Structure formats: structure tokens, C-alpha cells
């Protein structure tokens, strides 16, 4: 018996690659039907002009997540009201890759999409690291402390868990002795460069967070047909 909770749990692992947040939190799910061995999901993105490559990544990831839920034998993920919805939906039914899906007017291949995903994984990592450092600075650590810390020395927090998951996704060392503040290639940042590193990482985080805020506002307006300004801003 497939439960809606188990399906939603699986979908919470699917993120908008650019916003680094689960599609469940972003309210991209417009309809979900759970039946005997089958799940039908509809996704609605903030605007019909959300870049198709990102739309495709989310639809494909959602489908994969659904098929990994025990008991699910058939999963259908359909994109609502997107200007390339027809192509993406047909591509999903046929099990085609992005390149084949857009073959009629596109000459891309899977590599470029993987590259795009990799760019955003690096950015997500940089941003999560900065967020964690910022929280630690607020708790009394100095920048020297951060520069000399290893993973094992990190205090427990939700931010740490998210950070480590992004770090793991990049294939970087997450063992207790691995240095904490590193660049996306895993190279440790020297003590004297930590502040400048974080200063730049802060812009990456801001970029991701403000874009997520923008998308949320647009989606809310689209769903409600009215402005949504009541939603609270993420506080830092």
C-alpha cells in the first residue's frame, strides 16, 4: 500500500536545482494522486517561461524519486502550463532524455544538462557553507576558528546536516578529519583568505535565496490571481 506521506517524503528529496530547495516546499506540486501501484503527479512552475532545462531536470528527478518508493510500479509526472510542456511530457512518457525530447528544435545532449546541474551543486554547496559559517560566527566562533576547524569539530545543527549532504553530493570528503572551509573542489581555504571567501560566498547565497523568494511570489500570484506579499521573508 503506497501512502501519500511516503510519496511526499520521496518528493521532498527533489530540489529545484537553481533554488536549492525541495519542490514540496516551493509548492510546485499542483496535483498528486496515489493509486494501486501507481502515482500521478502534476507540477506547476512559477512561470511558463521557467527555463526548460531546469523544468526538465525537476520532472525527471521527480519521476525517478517516485519510482524509488516501494510499491510504485508506474509513475507519471506531467508539467502544467509550461510553454514546452507538450515536449517535456511526451519525452517523459517515451522515456527520452532531454536531448531527444527537444530533438525537433534542439541539438543538446545530456552532458550539457549534467554540467548545468553540476554548476548549481557547486553553488548550493558554497551557499550552504556560508550559511553555516554565518550561524557559527553568530554563536561566537571567530574566522580563525572556522579556518582551522575540521568536519568533526562542527557543532550539531540542521544547517550542518544540509551542508554535509550538499558536500557529499559534490563527492567531497565528509570524514571527521576533513577540513571544514573548502572550495567546491575540496581545497582548504587558507586562514587569511577565509573572510574574503565568505564575503563572496555570501553573494552566491543571496542570489539563490532572493531568486527563490522571487519565484515563490510569482507562483503565489499565479495560483491566487492576486499578489502575495504577506509571506515572510527568510530571516538571516
Amino acid at each position, binding site marked *: 500500500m503506497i501512502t501519500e506521506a511516503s510519496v511526499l517524503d520521496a518528493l521532498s528529496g527533489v530540489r529545484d536545482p*537553481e533554488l536549492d530547495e525541495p519542490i514540496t516546499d516551493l509548492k510546485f506540486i499542483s496535483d498528486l494522486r496515489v493509486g494501486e501501484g501507481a502515482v500521478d503527479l502534476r507540477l506547476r512552475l*512559477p*512561470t*511558463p*517561461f*521557467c*527555463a*526548460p*532545462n531546469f523544468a*526538465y531536470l525537476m520532472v525527471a528527478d521527480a519521476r525517478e524519486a517516485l519510482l524509488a518508493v516501494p510499491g510504485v510500479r508506474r509513475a507519471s509526472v506531467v508539467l502544467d502550463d509550461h*510553454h*514546452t510542456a507538450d*515536449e517535456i511530457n511526451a519525452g517523459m512518457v517515451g522515456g527520452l532524455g532531454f*536531448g531527444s525530447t527537444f530533438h525537433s*528544435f*534542439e*541539438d*543538446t*545532449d545530456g552532458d*550539457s*544538462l549534467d*554540467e*548545468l546541474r553540476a*554548476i548549481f551543486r557547486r*553553488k548550493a554547496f558554497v551557499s550552504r557553507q556560508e550559511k553555516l559559517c*554565518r550561524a557559527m*560566527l*553568530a*554563536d*561566537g*566562533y*571567530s*574566522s580563525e576558528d572556522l579556518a582551522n576547524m575540521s568536519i568533526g569539530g562542527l557543532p550539531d545543527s540542521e544547517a550542518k546536516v544540509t551542508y554535509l549532504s550538499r558536500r557529499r553530493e559534490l563527492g567531497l570528503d565528509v570524514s571527521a578529519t576533513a577540513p571544514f572551509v573548502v572550495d567546491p573542489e575540496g581545497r582548504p581555504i587558507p586562514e587569511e583568505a577565509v*573572510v*574574503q571567501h*565568505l*564575503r*563572496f560566498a*555570501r*553573494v*552566491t547565497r*543571496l*542570489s*539563490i*535565496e*532572493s*531568486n527563490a*523568494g*522571487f519565484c515563490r*511570489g*510569482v507562483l503565489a*500570484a*499565479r495560483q491566487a490571481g*492576486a*499578489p*502575495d*506579499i504577506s509571506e515572510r*521573508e527568510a*530571516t*538571516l
Partner: protein
Amino acid sequence: MYEKDGEKYFVVDGHVHFWNAGPDNRNKYGKMFIDCFYGYHSALSPEEYLWDEEKFADYSEETMMHDLFEIGYVDKAIFQPTYLLDFFPNGFNTTAQDAVMADNHPDKFILNSSFEPRLGEQGLAEFEEKHKRYGFKGVKLYTAEWHEDSKGWKLNDDWARRYLEKCQELGVKNIHVHKGPTIRPLNKDAFNVDDVDHVASEFTELNFIVEHVGLPRLDDFCWIGVQEPNVYGGLAVAMPFIYSRPRYFAQIIGELLYWLDEDRILFSSDYAIWQPKWLVEMFVDFQIPEDLQGEYGTLTPDIKRKILGLNAAKLYDIEVPPEIPQEEPAMAGGETGYPERPL
């Protein structure tokens, strides 16, 4: 001109449109496109400035003149054309359409044009013709636009560089580059701003204004801005955050002031997506929240004056009335920095 608390501000709106996206001039993609714009409009505008969809798709000349110049404090507005002929049979807002409006109201508008490097030699000749006719000083470019088999282009492509050489020769010195939402499937990363970096160091006589300050790639944009003194940031799309997401707005402005500086940021409304009246009023009233001032400093009237109009006036040789103070500010805000020490 806007005046508040004894301070005067000369206002140049760096990015405006006079579009026709009504039912008589759009296909199904055109409808999606204007719906998308309407989403931005309704998501980020204060309620009293909301239009209905019909008006938003096709507003009148009178409406625009009223919103910009009668109530919106704008002294000069810069037309940035957007052709989109695949979606809107007569174009969304072309140079020719904008020119009619500009002619009707002398001294109010600055007319920019555009070029399409994939048209090669013939396009280059046409561009020169167009320049002879309209005499523009700036162009707006969409590198993510499709053309026949091409899925977009880069500013440092061979042909694009030929066009930029032509711009330099003709004195078309302001190159506005749209790095933003894509409208077609793309195998390339359309937000990528690397190509701006290449041409900015090659064409040092030209100014490259990255529209939407590179959002959602503010970080990549800032990185280029640090290295290239002729790279500017246009605030279209970032501006309305001032109302619905003021903390993000404060941080975006704060980062731009740090990585670029106060001389390279340009105000724009992106009319008719948003209206300059409330943006100007809120910006003049705006201050970095206290808890962020340690990192970002504060905004002084001099900084605001530069962003609202003086920076664009310099780029476009616009005469600024003598009552507007133009001296260099003594010290912009406080000491800014990353919180190195415990907060």
C-alpha cells in the same frame, strides 16, 4: 525630478517599454509571454498599482506619459527595444515603434536599438542604416534569443565582435545585455555572464550594462564587475524587491555597492511591469536595516542621486539641471565588511 526632505533627485529611468501584447498582436507563445510579465507585475507591485490583464497587455501612450512623467518623477526614460517577432507578429516593442513615441514627445526619451550578429554582413549594413536614421547611443542585446538553427550567441563570437567594433566606430557606446529568463529550450546556460567579461576587457571604450544585475547570477555578475571597470548593473527586476522583499533588496544593493561601486548602478522600473512612482518614492525613503549596516553601511542621498539618475546621465550625456548636487560624496556610509568577529 523628485524632492524629499530638502534633497533633489534627477531621475533617469534606464529601462522602459511601450509594448503591444494585445490579442490582435500575439500567438499562443506571445500570450504566455505577457502572462509571465503579468505574473511579475502582480507578484511584486503594491496593490494600488495593480492593473488588470487587459490594460497590462496593451496600454496607451497617454497612460505611459502620465505614469512616467506626470506622476512618476522621471526626467528621461530610456527605451530598450524587445523584438520577439516569433511571438508578436508586429513585434513586442521595436525601435521603429519606440521612435514614434519618442518623436511625439521630444526630450523625454532616449531611443536605443538592437543588433542581431547572426545576420552577418547584411545585418551589419542594416544596423549602420538604422543608426543613420535614429542616431542611438545604446543597444539592448538578447544573447539567449534563437535564430534559425542557432540556440543563442555569445558577445565574444566573431560576428558579435564585428558588430561591437561597429558600435565603437559609430559611437554607440552603451551595450545593454539581457541576462535573464530564457524563453526557449537551451543547451547552453543562458544566464552565463562570462562573455561580458571577455568583451568588456577587449572593448574598453564601450560600457556594458548587465540588465537585472545578472539575477539570478548576482555572484557571477559581481565577480566580473570587480574586474572590469566598464561593466555596470541595471536594476530592472531587482528594484521592486524594495517593497515585497526589502531585506533582500538591501543586501543586493549592499553587495553591488561593495563589488562595483556607487557609480556603476542604474535605476530602472522596467515599465510597464512596474511603475517608477512608487519605486522612486520607496528608494528615496529606503535605508539598509540597522542589523545589516555593519556589513553594508548606509545609503546616503548622494548615493541615491547617482543611482537614480546621475550615473545614467553620464553614460548618455544627459544634461543635469544645476540645482542637482553633483559633488563627490565625502564618505559613503560606514566601514563595511564581513562579520569577521563574533556577531
